[in-house]
C-alpha cells in the first residue's frame, strides 16, 4: 500500500514546528514566573486535563478543583520538569495524583490494581456483538457506568492524545498491562451494553 505522506510529510512538518519544544519552552517560562506562559499552558492543556479528570470522577465541581490544584502544581513545579516525558503526559500524571489523593480521602480508589492487573484481555466473543449493535450514544452512556479504573484507562488512551507508552508512563505500569487493561475495559463495556440490550 502506498501511503507516503505520513513518513515524508513528517520530516517536513517536524522540522518547522515541534509542539513538544513549545510546551517545554512554556514550562521554562512558567518556571521563571511568567504569567502569560501559565495562561497559555492552561489554554493548551486545561481542557484535556479537565475532561480526563471529569471522566474519572464524574463530578464537575470536584474535577474543577482537581484541575485547579493540578495547575497550581504546574506553576510550582514547572522548573523541575526534566523533559523525560511529554508535557501532556506529565501534566496528566500530576492530575492523576491529585485525583487519587482526593478520592483516597473519600475512601475510594481510582485504580484497584489487584483487581485489574490480571484481568485477561478478551478477544471478540458473544459479548462483542453488543458493541457491534450499539449506537454511539449507547456507548457513551455505557462508558459512564464503567468502573473508574476502566474509565480512566479509556480516557487516557482515547481522550488525552497520549500514545500507549505515555499512558503506561502516567499509570506507572508496563505497556502490555495498559493493553490488557484496555481490553478488560472493553469487555466490561460489552457486558454493560449487553445487559442494557437484554433489559430493553
Amino acid at each position, binding site marked *: *500500500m*502506498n*501511503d*507516503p*505522506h*505520513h513518513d515524508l*510529510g513528517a520530516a*517536513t*512538518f*517536524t522540522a*518547522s*514546528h515541534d509542539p513538544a519544544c513549545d510546551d517545554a519552552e512554556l514550562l521554562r517560562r512558567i518556571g521563571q*514566573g511568567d*504569567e502569560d506562559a*501559565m*495562561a497559555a*499552558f*492552561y*489554554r*493548551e*492543556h*486545561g*481542557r*484535556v486535563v*479537565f*475532561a*480526563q479528570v*471529569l*471522566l474519572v470522577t464524574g463530578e*464537575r465541581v470536584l474535577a*474543577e*478543583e482537581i*484541575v*485547579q*490544584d493540578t*495547575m*497550581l502544581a504546574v*506553576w510550582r513545579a514547572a522548573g523541575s520538569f526534566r523533559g523525560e516525558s511529554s508535557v*501532556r503526559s506529565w501534566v496528566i500524571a500530576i492530575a492523576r495524583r491529585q485525583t487519587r489523593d482526593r478520592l483516597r480521602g473519600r475512601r475510594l480508589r481510582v485504580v484497584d490494581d489487584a483487581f485489574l492487573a490480571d484481568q485477561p484481555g478478551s478477544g*471478540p466473543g458473544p459479548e462483542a456483538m453488543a*458493541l*457491534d449493535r*450499539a*449506537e*454511539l450514544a449507547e*456507548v*457513551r452512556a455505557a*462508558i459512564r457506568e464503567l468502573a473508574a479504573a476502566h474509565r480512566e484507562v*479509556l*480516557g487516557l*488512551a*482515547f*481522550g488525552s*492524545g497520549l*500514545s*500507549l507508552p505515555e499512558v503506561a508512563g502516567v499509570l506507572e505500569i508496563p505497556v502490555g498491562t495498559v*493493553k490488557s487493561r*484496555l*481490553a478488560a475495559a*472493553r469487555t466490561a463495556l460489552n457486558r454493560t451494553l449487553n445487559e442494557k440490550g437484554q433489559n430493553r
Partner: protein
Amino acid sequence: MNADPADTRYPHLDLGDLIAGAAGQPVGDRAREHLASCEHCQREANRWNLVADGVRGLAAAAPETAQPARPRRAGRRVPAGPWRRALLVAGSAAAALVLLVGVGAATGLVHVRLSGPGTQTALTAVTGCSQIEQADGTLEQVNGGSLVIRTASGQPVTVTTTATRFVSMSGPLLSDITDGASVMVRGSGSDGTIQAAIVTVGQPFSAVNPAGFVPVQGTVADASTAGFTLVTSSGTRIPVTTSGATLVVIPHASPGQLQVGATILAVGHAGPDGTLSATAVAGVAQLRSGPRLRVSVKVKDCSPSSIDEALGAISAEPASAG
C-alpha cells in the same frame, strides 16, 4: 501483527495496532495494508473506533472549562495573580474555542477551518500551529501539481503540491467507482442490498469513519450509474445502490483528480509571492450545505499525520453537514 490463535495461517493486527489506530496514533504500513484486506481486523477496528468515539464524545460533551475559583485550602502559598489570570484567560479562550470547534471531539486542539464567504485574507494561520498556514477557495486551474484557487474575497492563490503530499477528494463522484476498485461502503441495508451513503475509494482512511454506519469492504464489480456489486474477500457479492446523494470519498487522490469548481482547503507553509506550499489538500466537489459552509476540524497536534487526518475528515463532513 499477531497470529490469531484460532487460525495461525493468517496474521492479524495486534491489540496495540488496533488501539493506536482508534486513538489516531500512527500505525505501520504493514498494519494498514493488512487492515485493508482483513474483515476480521476491520470488525475489531470498528469496535475499538466506536469505543474511542464514545470516549471522545464524552470529552467533547464536558463543560468547556473549569470555572475560575480560588484554591480553598488554608495555608497554601498561592500565586493569586497569575493563577486567577490563567483561569480567566483560559475561560475566555474556551468560550472562543466552543465557537470554533462546533461539534466533535476535543483532545488537544488546534483548528483548521474551512469557511464560506467572509474570509478576507488569502492565507490564514492555523490556530495553534505556528508557521502553518491555510488557504481555502474554489479551484480554478490544475497545472500538474500546482493548483490555482480563488478565495472568497476574490484573491487568487497558487498552491503547490508534490506527489508525496496528502490529497483527498469528496463529493458525488460516482464515476470514480469503477470495476476493480477497492472500496469501503457505508450505508443502510435492506433485503441484502446496501443503499450507499458513503463510498471510500482506495485504501481505508480512519478519518472517514462517521458514526452510525457499519462499513463493508470489498471490490467493485458491475459498476453502473445506479450502483455496483461489492465483492468481499470471502467472495460474497452484495448489491449496492448509489444515487446523487451518495458521497464518494477518495482519501488518496492525485491533484489531477481534483475538479475545477471544487472547494479546496490547503494547509502548508507560506511560500514566496503569497503562494502556499501545501502539505495536505482537501477538495470537496459539491458542498451540501450551500455556499456558507463552515467546517471546523479538530487536529490533535500540528504533526503531519494529524493535519492529514483533519483534512481527510473534511471529506466526510459534507455528509453530516447536509
